[in-house]
């Protein structure tokens, strides 16, 4: 009798585990697949188009300097850690997070995500491997990096998150026994713990900006100035949502600076590298617009009835241009990149169009913009004059599309306002 009840309990537990895994597969499977397609396209373009121009000098630099190799590994780990927001949105949608309140005996839903997180780690392992690391170390590093990321997503309390990260680091220190891997896993926990520290000072920072916001719409400001002022104040308050997305293009700028200092990449190589880094800023533009859409909702296109649609689109365009413009400005001393202004405009326009496409689903903006990123690298195949012409044509098409979409959203909003007035 007792044997039968134990067998029954085991069967029930197995059925529960199977249900959890199936539910997680349904929830994150398609998202991970979409992200993988972007990874494959991005890496294929990266490896295919840039092998001669970027990777060869990159490998030469690695052979020359051990320190450079450490910096590259650091950048990769930093990129992984800072992309945790995208990972979290992909791997931990609300439906998965809600499993925490279910009576699951056999499996933590967070850890059920592990296989999909492992799948996503392959580009990191691949890049480490190209970078000259031992193949086994590269794969182990990639996998353990995902394990640490998933553990931090899965654990309920901050204390357990920190313990999981430190345990992961300890395992790597004991198993890998190479200075580079150890460095990655010593630095990564520090970066992860940093938000804890920042949390303590954020309250003062937010309170300061809340006071400032009331002075945004002064009478002597133009409408555009007031819109920009309010948007920047909103962004200052929600800095946690978009600031991490700037880290990846900044890491790209650091990489370009090192390659330039090593004299391994000049002229055309430098131009192409700049083009990629500025294109990478599309994620930051998308994250910034996503934060604004989250705050404003459907009214992002017209926070007030008196604001003309085109003026609002212009203000959003200017706000979205800030990260790529910053990257272009930082890269300017390194290369006299002639098309940077056009490219900054295209990057901002792409992010704006994607965010206007469906303002109700702000969280998907980053992923959609990421899908468009590989397209911009196609410009690398063109000569500078044909590139400029193509960029102007693309920009004009994007601006027309933005104008059309903005007007459509405004008409919908006005219909809603009319409906509300009629009531």
């Amino acid at each position, binding site marked *: 009798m007792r044997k039968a009840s134990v067998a029954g309990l085991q069967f029930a537990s197995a059925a529960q585990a199977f249900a959890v895994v199936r539910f997680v597969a349904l929830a994150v499977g398609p998202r991970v697949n979409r992200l993988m397609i972007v990874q494959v396209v991005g890496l294929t373009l990266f490896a295919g188009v840039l092998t001669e121009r970027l990777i060869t000098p990159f490998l030469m630099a690695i052979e020359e300097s051990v320190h450079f190799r450490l910096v590259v590994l650091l950048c990769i780990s930093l990129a992984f850690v800072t992309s945790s927001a995208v990972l979290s949105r992909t791997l931990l949608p609300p439906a998965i997070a809600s499993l925490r309140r279910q009576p699951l005996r056999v499996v933590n839903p967070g850890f059920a995500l592990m296989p999909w997180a492992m799948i996503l780690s392959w580009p990191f392992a691949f890049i480490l491997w190209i970078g000259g690391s031992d193949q086994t170390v590269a794969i182990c590093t990639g996998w353990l990096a995902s394990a640490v990321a998933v553990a931090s997503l899965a654990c*309920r309390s901050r204390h357990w998150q920190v313990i999981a990260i430190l345990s992961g680091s300890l395992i790597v220190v004991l198993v890998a026994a190479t200075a580079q891997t150890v460095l990655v896993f010593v630095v990564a926990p520090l970066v992860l713990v940093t938000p804890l520290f920042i949390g303590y000072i954020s309250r003062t920072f937010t309170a300061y900006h809340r006071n400032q916001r009331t002075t945004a719409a002064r009478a002597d400001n133009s409408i555009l100035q007031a819109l920009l002022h309010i948007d920047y104040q909103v962004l200052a308050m929600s800095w946690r949502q978009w600031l991490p997305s700037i880290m990846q293009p900044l890491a790209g700028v650091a990489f370009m600076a090192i390659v330039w200092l090593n004299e391994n990449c000049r002229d055309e190589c430098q131009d192409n590298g700049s083009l990629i880094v500025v294109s990478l800023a599309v994620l930051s533009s998308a994250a910034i617009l996503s934060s604004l859409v989250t705050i404003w909702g459907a009214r992002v296109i017209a926070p007030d009835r008196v604001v003309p649609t085109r003026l609002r689109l212009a203000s959003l365009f200017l706000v979205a241009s800030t990260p790529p413009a910053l990257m272009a400005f930082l890269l300017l001393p390194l290369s006299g990149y002639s098309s940077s202004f056009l490219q900054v405009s295209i990057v901002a326009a792409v992010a704006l169009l994607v965010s206007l496409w469906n303002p109700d689903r702000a969280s998907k903006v980053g992923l959609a913009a990421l899908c468009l990123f590989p397209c911009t690298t196609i410009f690398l195949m063109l000569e500078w004059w044909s590139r400029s012409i193509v960029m102007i044509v693309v920009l004009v098409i994007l601006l027309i599309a933005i104008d059309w979409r903005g007007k459509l959203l405004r008409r919908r909003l006005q219909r809603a306002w009319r409906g509300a007035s009629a009531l």
Partner: protein
Amino acid sequence: MSTPELSATDLTFRYGAGPFLGPLNLSLGVGLHELRGVNGTGKSTLMKCMCGEFEPTSGSVRVCGHDPAKSVTARSMVGFAPFPDDLPDFLTVKQYYRYIAAFRQCPSWSGDAICQQLSLPPDLSIGHASAGQRRKAGILISLVGDPPVVLLDEPWAAIDRASVEVVNNMMESLRKRCVVLFTTHQKVAVDVDSIHAIGER
């Protein structure tokens, strides 16, 4: 099974460096209990602590003597309909019900009667459901496995007048055997056994 009971002792919860809830003391028996408070006082947060989704910063929550944040037994005794909901867009109402039934190890589908009363099609895709239909689906899901403790956050929000009556009747039937705790900002048409107010900030 012992008498259903839900309690919170010196409960506090903090979102990082953000808003702070508590300290709260609450003890609820079988019946219908209303949780009141102005926006932002932590009603939904309190419910998330009570269902085990959040672990309190200090103090304790007990569901029939068990801590829901740590005990599987306690979590199996609580049904929760959060607001806004976190239903999966990629499933139908019936499919999601079946998954929750599998997690709770109870019969896979017994929601026909409630669906009919609430005019909720079981094969409706949650991703295509209206706000009211999602609310109804949330209430249906909170009742999977007939839990002795039911937490309903804004159960009447966005639902039509006919369904309001159905929800009222459902709550009347639950009050005899369950601890039902709900929040609302609307006028309540059911008799409540107790009202608990969370302090203003």
